[in-house]
């Protein structure tokens, strides 16, 4: 039996995925682009039939989104928050993965499971737990540190901590899995050359881990730009987080509170575009650094 006999089977097997892709990915993306280029036009007093019409406005909504001061403040907040989360979370994930892979570690299995544990905790629950741990009336940390964790400036760090706590284990596991796939003889060769464990980690393991580090960074950038759950969940516990703290929170407010779907659509495309540009920009920079020297 040759390939021609299989005929339509591959397409048949792929039909569910293609249908789902069309309905829940392609059509919504197209609809967002459509909405982002339209606006309700009100003529006269806006009364009566035909006084409100939806019209094509081209890139006006994008221009409005790009010049929106409230949104820019959101971007700046997320930039600070995101940089903090990415550096600390991925840094810790890398350190933990390298330590797990080191030759003489005790209780490695226990530590690996414990550090991965927060992955099983939903973002809402994680924020809720930490939110109560930050609350002045309950916080066990107040005894040691006299800090208001939910103050105007500290709240960003407190929120970053929740994201780091929730994400470090998963990223550690990705990096650790990649480390285990590296042939052990490479370390042996370095060891025979007199390299210390630290030198092997920094000079041999980290360069070989580059693809996995790139992967985790890109996924973390995409996730961090869309931060929504943590600030939304923390809002009831403090008055320092506005309803437009992050760009995605502004999208939510535009769409469901003020009912301006067109702005919401345009802003969400801007968020998607920025996350794609950042991801690909990061890929380019790293590729040039890591592989461009040869």
């Amino acid at each position, binding site marked *: 039996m040759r390939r021609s006999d299989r005929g339509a089977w591959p397409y048949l097997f792929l039909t569910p995925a293609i249908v789902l892709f069309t309905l829940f990915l392609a059509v919504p993306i197209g609809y967002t682009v459509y909405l982002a280029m339209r606006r309700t036009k009100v003529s006269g007093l806006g009364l009566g039939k035909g006084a409100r019409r939806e019209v094509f406005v081209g890139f006006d909504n994008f221009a409005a989104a790009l010049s929106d001061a409230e949104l820019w403040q959101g971007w700046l907040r997320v930039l600070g928050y995101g940089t903090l989360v990415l550096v600390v979370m991925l840094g810790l994930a890398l350190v933990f993965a390298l330590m*797990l892979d080191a030759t003489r570690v005790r*209780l490695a299995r226990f530590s690996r*499971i414990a550090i991965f544990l927060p992955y*099983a*905790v939903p973002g809402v*629950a994680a924020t809720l737990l930490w939110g109560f741990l930050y609350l002045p009336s309950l916080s066990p940390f107040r005894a040691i540190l006299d800090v208001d964790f939910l103050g105007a400036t500290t709240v960003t760090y407190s929120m970053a901590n929740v994201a780091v706590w929730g994400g470090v284990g998963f990223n550690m596991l990705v990096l650790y899995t990649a480390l285990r796939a590296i042939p052990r003889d490479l370390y042996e060769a370095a060891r025979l050359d007199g390299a210390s464990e630290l030198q092997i980690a920094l000079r041999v393991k980290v360069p070989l881990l580059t693809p996995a580090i790139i992967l985790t960074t890109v996924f973390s950038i995409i996730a961090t730009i869309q931060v929504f759950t943590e600030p939304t*969940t923390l809002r009831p516990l403090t008055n320092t987080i506005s309803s437009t703290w992050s760009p995605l929170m502004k*999208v939510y407010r535009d769409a469901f509170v003020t009912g301006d779907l067109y702005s919401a659509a345009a802003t969400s495309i801007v968020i998607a575009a920025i996350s794609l540009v950042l991801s690909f920009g990061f890929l380019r920079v790293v590729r040039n650094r890591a592989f461009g020297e040869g």
Partner: protein
Amino acid sequence: MSTPTETVAARHRAAGGRRPLGVVPTALLLIGALYCVFPVIWVLIAATKSPGELFSTSTLSFGTGFLDNVTDLFAYRDGVFWLWAGNTLLYAGGGALLSTAVSAISGYTLAKYRFPGRGLIFNLLIGGILVPAVVLAIPQYLLFSKIGLADTYWAVLLPQILHPYSIYLARIYAAAAVPDSLLEAGRIDGAGEWRLMSRVAMPLMVPGMVTIFLFQFVAIWNNFLLPFIMLGDDGKFPLTVGLFTLLASGANQPALYNLILTGAFLSLLPLIALFLTMQRYWRTDLSSGAVK
């Protein structure tokens, strides 16, 4: 274990004797473990305290009010917490099951068949990984509203079935776990393509499918944005949205804190149990084929 690895291990041991530095990595890892486990232990202890004890007793001493808290929680608004738990199980279980089935069949097809459009279809499906959820959730809501399905179970279930990364994992796993020779042998014996897929390929892919199921189960269980946008009726909420509304209504009433903390603690138990019992299936890389 082959002989060369044994000599390597022996050399490790010999070299290790001269390097008593395992203390630093061990200590760092234990500090990390403590940081990650502490909030979970804290909420376990907080859930045992009565409303009075929560603010008066020391952080790490167990209280006496656990059963009262659980009773109160289940009495809260005629047991809506139970409903949230059941809904979550339905969304995560049903969604992950469907998602795994779709991913496994797609991954198998993309790995084992050559046909026009294969590269294009694969690239399109995988491109979905890079699409941020934000550009999807709002139009999905509007489209569901148009066909009258917003605020129904379908609105949360259907959009989460397609999961590009799972298709990618399934393709890698199928390539490693389903031998071409077995499929060819089946074809020579006259088995049809459907039979080969359902009776030969799928059983071989079960370990990889368990991993995909687990990751997807957790992803849906943890999702907040989609149900938050799609649902208005709190009888259909999953636990994440339910806990959020509980927090939003009780944040300025310290008397409700016990309820919220007990709810948060109970909502963690199923996933932590799943997580600890299925240790060997939590893998981020399926390329080596069989999960041992």
